[in-house]
């Protein structure tokens, strides 16, 4: 069974620690070029390879990631 997923990141709460990036098996998260109101570059979706595995959100210390997933 295959999955298609996506993530939603609360940009203002993200501190850009990048632990999500290191834990993403699909290499689909990157740091933004822009900064948020605290001056942090935040995590953002880099491509559409996300499978909704939630590894990023599971390790996120600031709970800024919401994960969506559908079966395809």
């Amino acid at each position, binding site marked *: 069974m295959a999955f298609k997923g996506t993530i939603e990141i609360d940009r203002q709460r993200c501190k850009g620690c990048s632990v999500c990036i290191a834990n993403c098996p699909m290499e689909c998260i990157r740091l933004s070029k822009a900064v948020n109101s605290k001056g942090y570059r935040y995590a953002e979706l880099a491509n559409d390879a996300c499978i909704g595995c939630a*590894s990023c959100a599971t*390790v996120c210390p600031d709970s800024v990631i919401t994960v969506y*997933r*559908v079966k395809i």
Partner: protein
Amino acid sequence: MDSVTDIRKPENIVYRKPALLTDNIMHYCPGCSHGTVHKIIAEVIEEMGIQDRTIGISPVGCSVFAYNYIDIDWQEAAHGRAPALATAAKRLNPDKYVFTYQGDGDLASIGTAEIIHACSRGENIVVVFINNGIYGMTGGQMAPTTLLGMKTSTTPYGRDAKLNGFPLKITEMLAALDGTAFITRQAVHTAAAVRKTKNAIRKGFEYSMKDIGLSFIEVVSTCNSGWKLSPVEANKWMTEHMFEKYPLGDIKDVLK
């Protein structure tokens, strides 16, 4: 194939911030393990539906403000004394779930007597022990758990056994005490590790109602600011150095 906007519907959510975590932005540094452990404690309490029966005891250290983040009743203890508060809270309210949340300075240095005797008495509480080998809040001084050779602001040339003594493996010590029921050492650097730690915390909460003694969950953690590494580098350093001294896995489970 569904587009991203098609997928982003409430019914497709598979992971989100637990409702029991407040909206306060955590004061922790980027990548700090505290945030992850707070989150899984909130998840466990939420999933067990025990918010109205849970009492948390926060320590002195970076996590002194734990009470700002998990939406439960909290008591803020003096440095190292959380197990004493928890002892009374549990004995006076045996139907409540009582846990302490303590760092290595709090639990393994100034609070050594309190944790040892709470364990020895077999208090039916849960202890979550964050071991990052350093004093974070006061600016990165040596902790009892600091590894030999590790540089901190009070071991600027690296921890030297002759000068500073040896790192304390307090978790193994506590496992030797008859009053402990479940002792484990976990981490939160990968999704799999987070899930294991969460299961361990849940087991601890469940055991605390079985009248079998104290459950102790050590979480080997990073303090990337204190270690002077990026969060991702800190996780790598932890797996390469901390796990050798502090190996992960269950150490004791009286129901197994």
